[in-house]
């Protein structure tokens, strides 16, 4: 945010925070070791924890206050809190004056978001919203941490901006223990962004369209012109496949055939391509559709390199075992492809490539030598030179007098309901998430025998189970406008009426993404996995789960 795409604080800072909003995140299950840091705060420092989640998850059960908002009402809740804070005079006027722009317009924009308006929209009682808002604003240190509950919506970026507004409004940013932090869902989501594997940035979050100096640096180093235009995000790519603009796909370590929303549609798109190359460690469903599969080494234990975690810490990955015969290091594969396309890059070592990156993004990574990464057990960017210890929290500049750099803008964002609403045909809302022992489409986690694993279920509230006459364990049909699957029902008291929950962990058994909607956020390309309308029906005969 405000330039660099990364969480503003370190894990250990959450141990010193006085209030934490854990928003749209079941970190207890999805980020268990980060949750240890949070619990240290809760149990030792006395951190007051608010969990905003439609489900009363494991994480929510730790909360001092659970705010069980309606799916997709995040902006309504955030803006109502903002209005309450402003009306109570609890906004940080000195900080706003020093660091922000657009406050007046923002204040005007949230004016309609009264507590009384927000209560029926979010479901959360007005007194609870008020108390949470006051606690956040008056805490010496407060943090907002979120996960996919915020970002897997058609208005994901607006959701994030609404949370950032709260931090700006209260000065809960740019200090130890105060800030806003996305918890990354995957081992190197952050590192992918750092290294420019996003459509709008060069390595080191240097903007392709706007940063001419950066472009020049890369052009000089690489000897090729850099086109000053943004590339396509995932959703746009599949749209382009639909229009025929994209004809070939090189897919590295991703399983879109099962991980992306509206799986039937995705499969159709992939099958319509002229040429599909998948570089993988397994024969995933996507790999099975490929024309060429390139067996790769597992990057985390069969090759060397770096990853970046959710606190912006660049960490060394090391080779511990030899890959199986025939599988090749990803770097080797890419270099060979380049060579066969006529560009001989040789076979650079991971460290040599890393040093090239450091040279091209010096403000960001200049001080991150392999030697220092080893010695310091990873370093948090930005780290411009080798005497710099790394950055625990970001944006301290906003507090400096006079402020350094550009002002932090308030963003005007408005509540929108999820794209798909419940109706008479689809009277339930399906939301998705993770379980503790499994991961994404189960490609990796299916490799070990978890005693916790019960296979895919559709979790339903006791009320809905009673309404539809469903008993625990009974196989039911779940249908959306896009498809239908069978799965055993699990009665889950953490769900309220009309809300059902599934995961994506067992796509071979239950292809949950047949149900989900590919209505994506135009700004981020993330699909609205967290909300689609479904119905649940009893299945007449005994049919094994998963059969369509």
């Amino acid at each position, binding site marked *: 945010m405000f330039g660099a795409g990364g969480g503003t604080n370190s894990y250990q800072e959450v141990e010193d925070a006085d209030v934490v909003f854990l928003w749209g995140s079941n970190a*207890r299950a999805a980020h268990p070791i980060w949750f240890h840091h949070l619990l240290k705060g809760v149990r030792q420092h006395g951190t007051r924890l608010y969990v905003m989640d439609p489900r009363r998850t*494991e994480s929510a*059960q730790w909360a*001092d*206050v*659970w705010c069980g908002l309606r799916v997709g009402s995040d902006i309504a809740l955030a803006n109502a809190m903002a209005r309450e804070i402003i009306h109570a005079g609890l906004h940080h006027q000195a900080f706003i004056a020093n660091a922000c722009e657009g406050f007046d317009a923002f204040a005007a924009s949230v004016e309609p978001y009264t507590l009384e308006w927000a209560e029926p929209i979010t479901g959360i009682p007005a007194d609870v919203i008020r108390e949470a808002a006051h606690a956040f604003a008056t805490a010496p240190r407060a943090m907002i941490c979120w996960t996919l509950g915020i970002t897997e919506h058609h208005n994901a970026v607006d959701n994030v901006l609404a949370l950032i507004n709260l931090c700006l409004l209260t000065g809960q940013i740019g200090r130890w223990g105060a800030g806003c932090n996305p918890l990354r869902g995957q081992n190197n989501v952050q590192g992918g962004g750092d290294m420019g594997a996003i459509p709008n940035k060069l390595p080191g979050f240097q903007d392709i369209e706007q940063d001419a100096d950066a472009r020049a640096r890369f052009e000089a180093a690489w000897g090729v012109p850099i086109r000053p235009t943004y590339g396509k995000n995932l959703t746009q790519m599949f749209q382009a496949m639909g229009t025929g603009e994209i004809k070939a796909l090189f897919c590295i370590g991703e399983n879109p055939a099962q991980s992306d929303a509206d799986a039937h549609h995705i499969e159709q798109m992939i099958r319509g391509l002229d040429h599909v190359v998948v570089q993988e460690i397994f024969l995933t469903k996507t790999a099975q559709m490929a024309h060429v599969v390139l067996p790769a080494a597992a990057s985390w234990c069969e090759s060397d390199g770096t990853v970046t975690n959710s606190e912006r810490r660049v960490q060394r990955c090391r080779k511990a075992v030899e890959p199986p015969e025939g599988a090749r290091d990803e770097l080797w594969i890419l270099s060979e492809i380049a060579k066969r396309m006529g560009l001989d890059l040789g076979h650079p070592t991971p460290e040599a490539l890393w040093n090239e990156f450091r040279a091209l993004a010096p403000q960001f990574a200049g001080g991150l030598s392999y030697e220092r990464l080893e010695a310091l057990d990873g370093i948090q960017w930005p780290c411009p030179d080798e005497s710099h210890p790394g950055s625990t929290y970001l944006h301290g500049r906003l507090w400096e007098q006079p402020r350094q750099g550009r002002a932090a803008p308030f963003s005007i964002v408005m509540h929108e309901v999820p794209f798909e609403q419940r109706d008479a045909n689809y009277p339930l809302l399906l939301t998705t998430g993770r379980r503790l022992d499994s991961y994404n489409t189960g490609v990796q986690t299916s490799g070990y025998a978890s005693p916790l694993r019960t296979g895919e279920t559709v979790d339903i509230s006791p009320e809905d189970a009673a309404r539809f006459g469903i008993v625990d364990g009974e196989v039911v049909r779940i249908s959306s406008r896009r498809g239908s699957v069978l799965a055993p029902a699990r009665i889950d008291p953490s769900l309220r009426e009309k809300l059902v929950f599934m995961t994506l962990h067992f796509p071979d058994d239950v292809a949950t993404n047949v149900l989900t909607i590919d209505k994506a956020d135009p700004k981020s390309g993330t699909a609205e996995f967290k909300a689609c309308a479904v119905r649940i029906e009893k299945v007449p005969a005994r049919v094994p789960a998963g059969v369509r």
Partner: protein
Amino acid sequence: MDIKLSQAAAAPDERAAVDALLGPPDSPWVGGARGAARDAHTAVGGRVMRERRHLLVPALQTLQARIGWISEGGLIYVCERLQVPPAEAWGVATFYALLATSPRPRRVVHVCDDVGCRSRGAKAVLAALEATGAAIAHEPAADHMHLDAERPGWMHSPCLGLCDQAPAALVTDAGSPCDERLLGHVTPERARALLDGAAPGADATSVTVLPQQGDASLVLLARAGVVDPTSLESYRAHGGYVELPKAIDRGAEAVIREVTASKLVGRGGAAFPTGRKWDAVRTQTATPHYLICNADESEPGTFKDRVLLTADPFAIVESMTIAAFATGCEKGFIYLRAEYPLAAQRMRHAIDQARAAQLLGDDILGRGVRFDIEIRRGAGAYICGEETALFESIEGKRGEPRSKPPFPVHSGLFGKPTVVNNVETLANVLPILRMGGEAYAKTGTSQSTGTRLFCLSGAVARPGVYELPFGASLRALLEQAGASPRLRAVLLGGAAGVFLRADEIDLPLSLEGARSADATLGSGVVMAFDDDEDLVDIVLRLAAFFRDESCGQCVPCRVGTVRQEEALHRLARGRTLAGAPGEIALLEEIGVAMRDASICGLGQTAYAAVESAVKRLGLFTGAGA
């Protein structure tokens, strides 16, 4: 927190019992019904719930009292209500001897087989019960699923604190309400009748008759057996509630000055100056402060606090109120051992009466002083008399002692500054304020001021609680109590005390007198044994007591008490591993390690009586006696 509960459901009466204690559940997230719109969107948890953990032991006790044991369904319901992880609750439930985690009959007759009772009729009672074939309540029978809850059972018990009426038994009849009675002079016939369902009759402690009844020199016991312990008016008529208003007039510092001047030291065993303790708590900046009256009198042979609590309960309430005022406590607890049901009843009544008369509560005597008292009952664990184990127990945990430092005056109950005083110590507060500290300090000896209560039992004609000024001779006390002319040994100070030979009883009963005789007054136990006594059997029982009552936390005590008992058994049976001298040397090695390296006083003193039995009485060596 994210606890996982099994599907086991509480029976309606279990649920009702828990709800009667905690109130009905206020949301579906703690066991209530679903349906309210608010509950679907918000829930309070976190610290508010964690701060209810201290209700765990009372909640488990209420289940025990209602049906006689803690079923899985009952345990799970308590866990749901209090949001306590079931494994933790299980750890707590299995720690306390009077909480059963396997089915027990509604009526259980707990027969004392401890040192004070075993040779005074208890063995005959136990033999009679064994012959009936009735369920031994603590042994989960192979077919316990078919246990007939209505058929009474029985079990062994450590000292019930009724050594003056040996042999003793405690009868518990689970139900609503649960009926508990302490019975004395139990005969085999009476015990058999109890197993057949006979009414237990009046509690043996309901009427107090002192050996020294009417003696004008009594100070702490002056009102005992005279005042009506259930009447505030009677207490006032006998000089009660004169000191509290005067103490408030004088102010906290002046009260502490008097207590300091009196040189009063704690009567629980450690003999720490009470005035210093009070002052240390008063001056702590951390708040709140807590006051605890330690009434977990469980040292075998000890029953003096029982007499004070049952015979003069208002005096304890008044003393606690003054102590709380002096030390800045607004909340007090009486931690009262489970085996004293009548004492609990009388204290509860006294507290209620005092509160009704504005002698407790938010505005005591209209003077703006705030203090109230809650009774917490033990659940069958000697170790909980250790002050830090007592804190753990009140906090809803296993009674495992803490490492000191930090000391309770800095970090005690709930981590806050805490005054812990024994019942007898508190009973001295009123006389000190009445007489003035300096005058009080002139009684007793120069180093041991005031009077002391002694619990006479065993081979004496007139057992009971005696009050003597410090410095009186042990021989005189024994004579006063009518000790057997064939006296062989005296256990002085309790299980954690030492045996004295019959020729060693001329010591003065003062702290310094005991110290110079390498003995301790401990909790005031004076248990006499004559030639009829099988002292080896007594020593084995003491060793078993420490083994049974060790909390198990630290290695020296957990294993040392076992190794000590094993060595004693080998010696007693003449089946030594390396000859008697080798076993005795081994006992010494074990004992020294327990004394030096154990966390708390239990392990540190577990060898004391054994050592004295070997070295002074010549047990196993033939030397000594």
